[in-house]
């Protein structure tokens, strides 16, 4: 019953968000009216100001600005000619090889910071975060992550990428380091450590997450750390089909301790993913993906394997003539792992399998160039043994303001509904998360 209430509440929240946030995200008509009012004020002020006189062509500082711009342009046009002839022949300060410090070939570097604030209604004991599903954030403020990203072509064959991440201001992690290479037409190879294409969410860095936290299913099935982020060799052909179809086959070292992490170094893990995409007219696309990974796990010497399966569906609507102003993304994923339990040689009995599956579905709606409202429902508890962990539902709503591609402020509300009190002593939790996400440096690559 409660779930129904919540789902209804969430829907009401989503559809009434424009009213709720009247000050910030009001309907387009009203907003324009407000804009007009402010503009009228400004016009009046300018006309009444001392500098404004009908006869004088120029007066106020603001108006001079337009002429200054024009002046600057003229100069610039003159410079343009000079530059096209000298640049690259004589070099400049950045590329001076004679100094031994040549910065011309520096990789493209971008830095990303994530500042978060969180409030949890339950369990605010220090150090309780991360101990159970859905509580990655402590009440308080934190620098969630600082990411350093460097990309450059290594030579005429390879492109190299390195991503370092600082978590919680103390640990540095090599999040990704890999090279890309196109050895033959239609085929690319990626080698190194990277976020593997197991579904859609697993590919993302924390600052690219559509919500402040990762979906429950990804955390429960693939692990709270980084999902399936492996040292791997991946072969990625495009298949000659009438639609876009990419296939990934990865041989991985199998280090994910939730899934693989065998006691033998020759136990590799394998991953396959098929990504298919169709255009639905000019303004929408449908993507369907299927993933499968398996490998020996570390529970015993026996043939105890983990199989991981996943399916994803994404519908993106983005009108071509207004790409930046309106779009809708509906994304859903199913993830499950089937992990054979250990065989105990002393009792000759096998431990129970650790199977778990989950789903999430989310909608991101861009109501304005800079405003998004989003909703997400997540569930974990499929394929679970009766004795194993209980069912968990999470309902999330998010409001995002993105002033530019380089900055966003997001406010998220979570309601987590656990099946019973369990060992945690409460069966419901409310969370409010706030995040500032900013990027400096080179332009981050757009994903689709």
């Amino acid at each position: 019953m409660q779930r129904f209430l919540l789902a209804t509440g969430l829907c009401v929240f989503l559809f009434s968000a424009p009213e709720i946030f009247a000050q910030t995200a009001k309907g387009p008509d009203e907003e324009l009216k407000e804009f007009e009012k402010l503009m009228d004020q400004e016009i009046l002020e300018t006309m009444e100001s001392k500098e404004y006189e009908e006869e004088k062509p120029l007066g106020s500082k603001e108006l001079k600005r337009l002429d200054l711009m024009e002046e600057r342009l003229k100069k610039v046009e003159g410079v343009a000619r000079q530059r096209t002839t000298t640049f690259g022949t004589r070099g400049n300060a950045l590329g001076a090889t004679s100094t031994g410090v040549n910065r011309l070939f520096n990789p493209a570097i971008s830095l990303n910071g994530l500042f978060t604030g969180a409030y949890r209604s339950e369990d605010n004991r220090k150090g309780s975060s991360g101990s159970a599903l859905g509580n990655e954030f402590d009440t308080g403020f934190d620098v969630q992550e600082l990411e350093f990203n460097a990309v450059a072509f290594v030579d005429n064959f390879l492109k190299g990428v390195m991503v370092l991440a600082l978590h919680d201001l103390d640990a540095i992690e090599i999040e990704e380091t890999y090279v890309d290479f196109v050895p033959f037409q239609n085929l690319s190879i990626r080698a190194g450590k990277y976020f593997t294409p197991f579904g859609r969410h697993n590919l993302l860095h924390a600052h690219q997450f559509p919500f402040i936290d990762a979906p429950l299913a990804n955390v429960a099935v693939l692990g709270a750390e980084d999902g399936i982020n492996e040292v791997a060799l991946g072969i990625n052909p495009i298949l000659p089909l009438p639609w876009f179809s990419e296939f990934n086959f990865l041989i991985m070292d199998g280090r994910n301790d939730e899934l693989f992490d065998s006691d033998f170094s020759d136990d590799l893990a394998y991953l396959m993913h098929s990504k298919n995409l169709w255009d639905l007219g000019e303004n929408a696309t449908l993507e369907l993906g299927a993933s499968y990974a398996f490998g020996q796990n570390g529970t015993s010497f026996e043939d105890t394997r983990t199989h991981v399966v996943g399916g994803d569906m994404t519908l993106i609507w983005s009108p071509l003539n207004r790409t930046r102003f309106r779009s809708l993304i509906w994304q859903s994923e199913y993830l499950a792992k089937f992990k054979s339990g250990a065989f105990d040689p002393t009792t000759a009995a096998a431990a129970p399998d650790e199977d778990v599956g989950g789903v999430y579905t989310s909608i991101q709606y861009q109501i304005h160039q800079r405003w998004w409202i989003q909703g997400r429902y997540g569930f974990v508890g499929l394929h679970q043994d009766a004795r194993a962990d209980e069912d968990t539902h999470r309902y999330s709503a998010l409001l995002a303001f993105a002033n530019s591609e380089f900055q966003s402020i997001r406010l998220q509300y979570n309601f987590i509904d656990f099946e019973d009190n369990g060992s945690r002593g409460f069966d419901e939790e409310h969370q409010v998360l706030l995040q500032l996400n900013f990027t400096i440096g080179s332009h981050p690559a757009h994903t689709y």
Partner: protein
Amino acid sequence: MLKNKSVPVGNLLVAWCLGFFLFGTPANVHAKLHIVSTTTDLAAIAEEVGRNLVEVNFICRGYQDPHYVDPKPSFMRLMNQADLLLYHGLDLEGTWLPQIIEGSRNRKVRFGQMGNLDMSLGIDPILEIPQGIVDRSMGDIHPFGNPHYSMDPVNGMTLADSMAERLSILDPDNEKTYHANAEDFKSRVASKLKEWHEKLHDFEGTRIVTYHRSWSYFFHRFGLKYLGNIEIRPGILPSPRHLAELAVEMKRRKSDLILNANYYPPKWAELLAKKSGGRVAVLPVHIKGEPQVNTYIELIDYLVDQIAEKLSGSAGK
């Protein structure tokens, strides 16, 4: 206890190899050269130069903002078949083209290859190259200068030459045809150029407000001038204060034309017109931006006619 494991890798490899054979079928034998361009402008000129020797596709629709294109995988599929990629460069497509090239797994169109042609290399002068240090506080500024050069018909001619030159390298057997086609296109543009100059002659020096600086090269050619832009800085939405300034300045200078490229929402332009007593012209800035503009000459013709018509109805200059 022995370690007991069956190796299923074999099965997988078989399955994968099957896929490999599938895509390994020879799909690279084209009778025609496949050209993919980022915009309709480049596509239309490539059609003129290549005619029946080429097949031309483009990514960004004529009514779409070329600064912001989603790197859809379907474009990667298109790019996968390309022998030659034509793009504006100067970072116009910087946020989306690299992903499409990479996703295409097409070695021919990678940077530095003969199948990769940055059309800005032949353009001189490049307008509005920022001086000094470029910074994100300036908005989505074009750091290497204004890339909207195809709106100047003289540049249109240069583009045809660059294409003929590159096509001759990729397909030397038809070198003469490509150059002859380019010459033919250029002579048609050249004869029109006089007419266009005449139509806009009376309005030389007129100041016009535009949404974005998409018009710089067109204005440069025909002696028109900006009064200002609706966006505060490239890619940054206007503020009431900024539009108020523009409105006052329009009245003061008796300038009354506002050009709004058809992929920008016209609401700000309309508001500005209301406050300044000006008029808005929503115009295509690329070929196929409106159903009636399907060739390069048709586009420039249309723009010249529309602007001349709007300006001749104006109160002053």
